[in-house]
């Protein structure tokens, strides 16, 4: 206590105004230097000339520099008063994050019940349910990637490739063999897992960072092949008119095909397009829940424990007789198949897929969800997916600045909480202190 008392001076005297101003001025100066070339001058296409036109925007530079000055000032003042006001006190968010696992309140079940109720609470609002579907796709992808990154500790930067494989499996199987969504769903997972094994076999014995770059390269390869192999994949135009899933063979249509009844007519309801949206919502909710249950059960199986052990210490695992390559491969394949399921669902939900949907940025978003949520935390991943999908959705007016803010938020959250938003990792197995202490 005495140590903290001597280092942290009293809150009022702690604010060294001249130093703060100097610091803010310095930051603003750096901002000025950074802004001069790219904000200060704007090049534009001159009509009728090959050379570029030039105009200056000193007003924007000035606004930016002033904003940086005051932003830095406020940040430093806030940081200093927060730190010196209550020395030794744990910051607020740390307490919140730390208390989540301790509180006996069932956050998880509560969220699940909420998720089940969403279509009822917002019945008739297809927009909300549609966003709910997007959130759940990302939750599922996040949980799938969590198996690879969070549990097995393998950095996969090309997860979207498996998502793409799943989506194209369904689209192509439908177009060539007329298979339905429900028949394709397991196949999509199988194909994605096969790709995972094919990719994993050569690279999984490599060190972590090489794995990252190879998976990143693999993601690009899949995309390039999808774009260029036009005869098979439709090229950049993608594949359109992918059918929607049916409810036990009953389609969601206004008029039934020959000899069949539609969902609405079977249940004696009046046809409404929202039935399909709600149905899709429950399908992805079920898939996501399945992912969650599978992951939670896997963690308790020997293989899941081997993953976590491998993440912590590979050499110790080797000496205990765990085959690292095979163990990593199962994690990779299971993660890939979950991505494949999500991909097949994505295809049926959109009704149209093209390579545009499977760029690196998607992989980055999924990885960001896993890491921002706190690796290995199922609840954290779900909350991060909710935040990353809904926040940009709220800022639709700033569509132009959406990705700019997204990138900045990623940096800020990482700097603020490097271990993720909810990062209290519970050990899967605990020795019982009562026995044999």
């Amino acid at each position, binding site marked *: 206590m005495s140590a903290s008392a001597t280092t942290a001076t009293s809150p009022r005297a702690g604010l060294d105004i001249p130093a703060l101003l100097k610091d803010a001025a310095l930051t603003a100066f*750096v901002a000025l*230097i*950074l802004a*001069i*070339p*790219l904000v200060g*001058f*704007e*090049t*534009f*296409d001159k009509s009728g000339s*090959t*050379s*570029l*036109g*030039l105009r200056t925007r000193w007003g924007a530079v000035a606004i930016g520099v002033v904003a940086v000055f005051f932003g830095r000032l406020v940040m430093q003042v806030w940081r200093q008063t927060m730190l010196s006001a209550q020395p030794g006190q744990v910051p607020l968010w740390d307490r919140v994050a730390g208390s989540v696992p301790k509180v006996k309140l069932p956050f998880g079940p509560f969220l699940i019940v909420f998720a089940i109720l969403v279509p009822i609470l917002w019945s008739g609002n297809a927009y909300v349910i549609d966003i709910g579907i997007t959130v759940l796709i990302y939750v599922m992808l996040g949980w799938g990637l969590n198996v690879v*990154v969070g549990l097995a500790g393998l*950095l996969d930067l090309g997860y979207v490739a498996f998502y793409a494989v799943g989506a194209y499996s369904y689209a192509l199987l439908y177009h060539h063999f007329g298979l339905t969504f429900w028949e394709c769903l397991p196949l999509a997972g199988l194909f994605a897992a096969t790709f995972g094994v094919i990719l994993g076999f*050569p*690279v999984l*014995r*490599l*060190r*972590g*960072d*090489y794995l*990252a*770059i*190879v998976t*990143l*390269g*693999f993601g*690009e*390869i899949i995309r*390039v*092949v999808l774009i*260029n192999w036009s005869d098979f994949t439709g090229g950049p135009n993608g594949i359109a008119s992918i059918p929607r899933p049916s409810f036990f063979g009953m389609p969601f249509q206004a008029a039934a095909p020959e000899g069949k009844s539609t969902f609405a007519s079977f249940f004696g309801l009046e046809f409404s397009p929202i039935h399909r949206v709600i149905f899709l919502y429950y399908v992805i909710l079920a898939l996501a829940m399945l992912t969650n249950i599978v992951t939670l059960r896997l963690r308790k199986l020997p293989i899941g424990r081997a993953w976590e052990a491998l993440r912590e210490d*590979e*050499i110790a695992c080797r000496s205990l007789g765990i085959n690292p390559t095979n163990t990593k491969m199962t994690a990779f394949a299971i993660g890939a198949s979950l991505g494949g399921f999500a991909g097949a669902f994505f295809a049926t939900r959109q009704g149209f897929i093209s390579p545009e949907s499977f760029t*690196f940025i998607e992989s*980055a978003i999924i*990885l*960001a969800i896993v*890491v*921002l949520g706190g*690796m290995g935390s199922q609840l954290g991943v779900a909350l991060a997916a909710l935040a990353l999908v809904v926040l940009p959705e709220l800022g639709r007016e700033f569509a*132009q*600045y959406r*990705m*700019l803010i*997204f*990138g*900045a*938020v*990623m*940096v800020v959250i*990482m*700097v603020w909480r*490097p*271990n993720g938003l909810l990062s209290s990792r519970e050990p899967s197995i605990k020795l019982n202190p009562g026995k044999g202490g």
Partner: protein
Amino acid sequence: MEYFLQQLINGLTLGSIYGLIAIGYTMVYGIIGMINFAHGDIYMIGAFICVITFTILGVVGITWVPLALLIVLIVSVMFTAAYGWAVERIAYRPLRGSFRLAPLISAIGMSIFLQNYVQIAQGARVKPLPPLIQGGVVLMESANGFAVRFSYIQMIAIAVTVILMIGLTYTITRTPLGRSQRACEQDRFMAALLGVNVDRTISLTFVMGAVLAAVAGVMVSLYYGVIDFFIGFLAGLKAFTAAVLGGIGSMPGAMLGGVIIGLIEAFWSAYFSIEYKDVAVFGILVLVLIFLPTGILGRPEVEKV
């Protein structure tokens, strides 16, 4: 034969540009063990500053090419170095010592931020640069009229790369800065105990990487004549591939890897299909990693318990 020679020249030019970017990756990886994902975008910013400076010079009226080129190089290098420094200061330094993935996620966020920042500030359309350095030397001419051309801009790109490599080797091996960099690379904690200013050394490493990336950016905008805000992603990916191929952490390895990637790309586009050149690059990467897991010039890393 003539066709082969021409592709060799093209590949070497491309490879030296990749090599310059790859050195930035390999230096940062060597010293703090992180993949600086935003490095490709630093290169893109270098290319944009180059185009903007050329446009300003055109308005001001400095059109004598050697002088303009010199000014553009200096201006791009200076401002891009400021960006490299700021990126490290904002996104990576607060994360030093936290777990392994945190700086990578921060770097990916930074990369997305920089791309969109340039897109908003300068527009999404491609920026053309009028060809300033034209002409070249015809090395040989075959009977059917195919001439092997070694253009001046290709010469400049290769010459600048060689000069920078000499300067860099000198800096790393002979100067106090290089000594502290090598010390930090071996053991950051011990280096700090012995009075090396680790923060400053890491900052300067980022600045050096950004300088090389800026030069690569200038060369690319002169060589291809068009740039856009997205060029950093693929170039960065290939440069990182080059760094891994050559053995990450090794500077000659990065240059070698860059040249190999450039040659693969040039020859694959020439003899097979231009669409699948990126597939070929990554395919070769996978093959090399299977047989040489530490890259071509990398030291095998012995992991201790």
